C-alpha cells in the first residue's frame, strides 16, 4: 500500500470524464451513454454524513493543541502553588514534606556533581532498551499467534501460563542467572513490556472483521498483501495502545529493578535517598519519573498520529 494508490481526480483529463465504456475499456462502440449529470445530481441528493473534519479546520486543530498544553499545565501549577503555601506555613515538618526550593536545590546539587544527568540517562537507556526488546518480541509473537492457527495452538497456552506468573517473581531467578549486571534489569523490563504488546496484538489480529478479510481475498489479496491492506490497518490503533501500555510497564519495571539492585539510576536514587532520609531527593526522583514517563508517552502519541494517518 503506497501513496500512489490514491488517485487525484483533478489529474484525469476532462475528456476522460463522461466517456462511458467497459470498466477496463475494451473499446466496444455499442456502449450506450449514461446520463451522468443526472447521476451526479442523484449522488448529491443521496445525503451523505458530513465529514468530521472539513477543509479549513487546520487552524482549529492547532488551537486545540495549544489549549491542551495550557489546560494540562493548570493542575500541576496549582499543585506547585499549594505545595509552596503548605511548606511555608510550617503545617508539615520539612522531614515529611520538603519545600519546592529544597527539591530544586537537591536537583542543582546532583546536577553539579554530574549525577543527575547520569541517573536520568542510565534509566532512560534501560527503559528504551528493555521496551524495544519486549515490544519487538511481543509484536512478533503476537502476530504469529494472531495470524496463524498453528501458532495459536502451539504458543498461546504456554505464553498465557508465563503471563500468569507475577513478573516480579522473576527477580530472584534473574539475579541468580545474571548477577546484578545490566542484563538482569533489561530482561525484567523486557518481560514487563512484552505482555501488554503480545496480548493486545494477538487479540486484535484474531478479531479483524472476517467479512472484510473474505471480501479482500475474493479480490485476490493473500499473504503479505492481505496483511498490509487489511489486517495491519485494522489493528494499528490497538497495537499503539498496547505499545503505550508497554511503555508504562517498562518504567514500572525499571524502578522495581533499580530499587532491588542498582548503583545508578532513578530507582537507585529513590532507594538510596530513602535509606538516608533524603526526602528532598525522593521527591526529585518521583518528579523526574513523572516527567520522563509523560515525555516518552507523548513521543509515542506523536507516532500514533502519524501511523493512523499513514495506515488507518
Amino acid at each position: 500500500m503506497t501513496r500512489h494508490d490514491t488517485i487525484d481526480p483533478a489529474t484525469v483529463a476532462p475528456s476522460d470524464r463522461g466517456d462511458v465504456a467497459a470498466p477496463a475499456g475494451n473499446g466496444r462502440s455499442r456502449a450506450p451513454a449514461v446520463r451522468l449529470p443526472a447521476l451526479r445530481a442523484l449522488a448529491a441528493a443521496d445525503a451523505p454524513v458530513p465529514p468530521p473534519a472539513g477543509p479549513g479546520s487546520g487552524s482549529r486543530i492547532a488551537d486545540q493543541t495549544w489549549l491542551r498544553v495550557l489546560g494540562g499545565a493548570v493542575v500541576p501549577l496549582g499543585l506547585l502553588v499549594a505545595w509552596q503555601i503548605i511548606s511555608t506555613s510550617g503545617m508539615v515538618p520539612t522531614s515529611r514534606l520538603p519545600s519546592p526550593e529544597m527539591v530544586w536545590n537537591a536537583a542543582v546539587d546532583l546536577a553539579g556533581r554530574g549525577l543527575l544527568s547520569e541517573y536520568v540517562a542510565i534509566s532512560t537507556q534501560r527503559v528504551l532498551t528493555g521496551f524495544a526488546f519486549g515490544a519487538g518480541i511481543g509484536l512478533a509473537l503476537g502476530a504469529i499467534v494472531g495470524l496463524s492457527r498453528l501458532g495459536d495452538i502451539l504458543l498461546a497456552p504456554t505464553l498465557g501460563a508465563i503471563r500468569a506468573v507475577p513478573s516480579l517473581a522473576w527477580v530472584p531467578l534473574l539475579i541468580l542467572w545474571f548477577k546484578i549486571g545490566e542484563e538482569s534489569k533489561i530482561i525484567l523490563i523486557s518481560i514487563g513490556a512484552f505482555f501488554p504488546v503480545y496480548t493486545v496484538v494477538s487479540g486484535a489480529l484474531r478479531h479483524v472483521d472476517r467479512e472484510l478479510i473474505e471480501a479482500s481475498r475474493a479480490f485476490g489479496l493473500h499473504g503479505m498483501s492481505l496483511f498490509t491492506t487489511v489486517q495491519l490497518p485494522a489493528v494499528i490503533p490497538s497495537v499503539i495502545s498496547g505499545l503505550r501500555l508497554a511503555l508504562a510497564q517498562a518504567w514500572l519495571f525499571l524502578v522495581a529493578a533499580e530499587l532491588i539492585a542498582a548503583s545508578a539510576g532513578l530507582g537507585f536514587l529513590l532507594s538510596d535517598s530513602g535509606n538516608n532520609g533524603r526526602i528532598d531527593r525522593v521527591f526529585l526522583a518521583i518528579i523526574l519519573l513523572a516527567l520522563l514517563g509523560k515525555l516518552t508517552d507523548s513521543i509515542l502519541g506523536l507516532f500514533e498520529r502519524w501511523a493512523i494517518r499513514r495506515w488507518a
Partner: protein
Amino acid sequence: MTTTVERPDARVPVADRAFGVTFSGLGRAFASRHEASRPVLRDITIDVEPGEILAILGASGCGKSTLLRIAGGLDRPTSGSVAIAGTAVEAYDTRCAVGFQAPRLLPWRTVQGNVTLGLPPGTPKADGKASVTRLLELVGLADFADHRPREISGGMAQRTSLARALARNPGVLLLDEPFGALDALTRLRMQDLLLDVHAAAPTTVLLVTHDVDEALQLADRIILLGLDGDVPGADIRQTVVVPGTRPRDRGSARLAELRARLLDGLGIDRHSADGRSEPDLAGPDLSDPTPNTTSKGTP
C-alpha cells in the same frame, strides 16, 4: 397472451472474457446443533451460458447467497460440483468478482481506494486510475471519491461496492442483492447502469435478488429457488426465459404475466404484495405450470 419459449436471439455478441458457469447436482448442507447436517441447497443443476444474465430469485434464507458464494469459491458444495468455463471452481476463484450483499468496504480507505482494490492485478497505474475515475462517474460518486465509507450513506456504500466488482472486469460477475439498499429511483438508475456495462462488455452475470421486477428487467433467464413441500433444502422450482430484448418496457403485459407467475412461485398474493418486500420462506404453489416456464415438483 402467450409468451415464447425461445431465448432472446438479439443478445449482444459475447466477449472473450465471459465464462459459462455449470452447476451439476450441487447441494450444500450446514452442520447444525440439532441435526447432523441441515440441507440448504439440493440438486441445483443449471448451465449458465457465457454472457448470460441469470437472476436467482427466492425467499429470504432459501440459499441464494450460499449458491453465489459457492460459484465464487468462497464456500464449497457438500455434493455435486460447479465449474467455470469447464474447469472446477477454485477457492476465491480469480475468474469471478463478487458484489457482496453488505458493502464490505475497507473503512480506512477512501471510496476511490476501495474501488481501486477491485482492479485486476497487474493493471498499469494510469489505466487503473482512469478506470476507477470512470466507474465512480458511472455510479454517481465522482464527487465523493475522497470520502471514507463512514462519511457516505448506505446506498452510496453499496454503489461503491458495485463499482469495485465492476472494476475487476471479470469473466463472471456475482452480484448479491446489489441494489437492495438503494432508494427506488437510484435502483432504476443502477439497473440501467448494469445493463449498459453489460452491453459494453458482456460478462456472465449471476444476480441474486428477491425483487421480481428487477429480475424481469435485467435477466435473460430467471431461476426461482424454493422448497418442495417438506423436503429440506431448496432446489430450482421454476426456470423462466424472459422474452424480448433489453431494455424491456417495464409496463409490458407479457412481463406482467410472468411477474404474476413468479410471485405465485414465491408464495405471494400479488394483490397485496408488491414483490419487493422480502417474503417468508414458504413452499411455492405450482399447481398451474405453464408453457413458458419449466417447473418441477408437486403435480
